């Protein structure tokens, strides 16, 4: 009987799972740059299973595109972030498709340092903005603030 009750509560618990689990997670491997040379920062993004977020380029100007902003540093010249190929999400009952990202993907940010840059560790402030939906809900746009650790050799 105890075992059956445990199974019962496990199943009920699993139906309500997901509380406080973030929809989008970012991890940033340490980036390395060399004085006066070009390199790139890679952001690993994970979208919770079942959800998608709008692409960087959206077909409807009022949708919220996924964007990355990195605070500038006078010694580091940042390029335009490069986003992955989008997936199409069909809006059932219409002829419309949304361009979205889901699962795991990478955003690449090229950068170049000044020749006379001071060598050492830099922490760049960054923000990822996105708007997520799953099959039952569309969530308010959100912004994640994070740090990009960068070592200049």
């Amino acid at each position, binding site marked *: *009987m105890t075992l*059956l*009750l445990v*199974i*019962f509560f496990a*199943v*009920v618990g699993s*139906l*309500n799972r*997901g*509380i*406080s*689990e973030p929809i989008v997670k970012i991890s940033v491997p340490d980036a390395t740059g060399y004085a006066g040379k070009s390199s790139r920062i890679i952001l690993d993004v994970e979208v919770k299973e079942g959800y998608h977020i*709008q692409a960087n380029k959206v077909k*409807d100007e*009022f*949708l*919220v595109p996924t964007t990355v902003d990195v605070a500038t540093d006078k010694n580091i010249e940042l390029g335009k972030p490069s986003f992955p190929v989008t997936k199409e999400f069909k*809006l*059932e*009952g*219409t002829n*419309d498709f*949304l361009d979205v990202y889901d699962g795991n993907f990478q955003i690449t940010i090229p950068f170049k340092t000044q020749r006379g840059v001071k060598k050492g560790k830099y922490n760049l402030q960054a923000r990822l903005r996105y*708007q997520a*939906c*799953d*099959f*039952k*809900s*569309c*969530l*308010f*746009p959100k912004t994640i603030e994070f740090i990009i650790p960068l070592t200049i050799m």
Partner: protein
Amino acid sequence: MRYRIMLIIVLLLSVMFSIGQEDQYLIGRPAATFTLKAIDGKSYSLAEMKGTYVVLHFAATWCPFCNAEAPHLEELYKNYRDKNIQVFIVDVKEDKDLVEKSLARFKFSFPVLLDADGAVSASYAPEGVQPDLARDEVPLASNLILDKEGKIRFYSLLNSANFDAKLTQLKQKLDELLQMK
């Protein structure tokens, strides 16, 4: 032992069924009253709508499902406004200027209400549904019909797997209600 196993199975099925029907327990209950300002500057009160069928749609300008339904809501209003039906969009937590700019393309001839702090939207979130979401997020993209006494007669939360952009089910229910009067 067999009886206990049966009991557990019945309990499990009842929990799973109730989650599948999560928005349906509100049917027949009085809708939460509100007074909201519209983008036309006028105030609209649900209490003043007694005697009229009301269609409510919760929306945000960035919501793709809401935008897909928008032309069909306008069409619905045009086809039903002479049948004692009022349509309202309740825009949730957005700036008036943005809402005006975004919705101009749909040329709505019914009021678009501004739920600036999300309190009205939160009051329409079915209890216990999507507990991991903010309460004012839950009703986004959903449609309701309130009857002439202000009771909820239809409530469809977003279900993008069976997305009803053309509002077929809503219209069916409206027709049913109109035939009953």
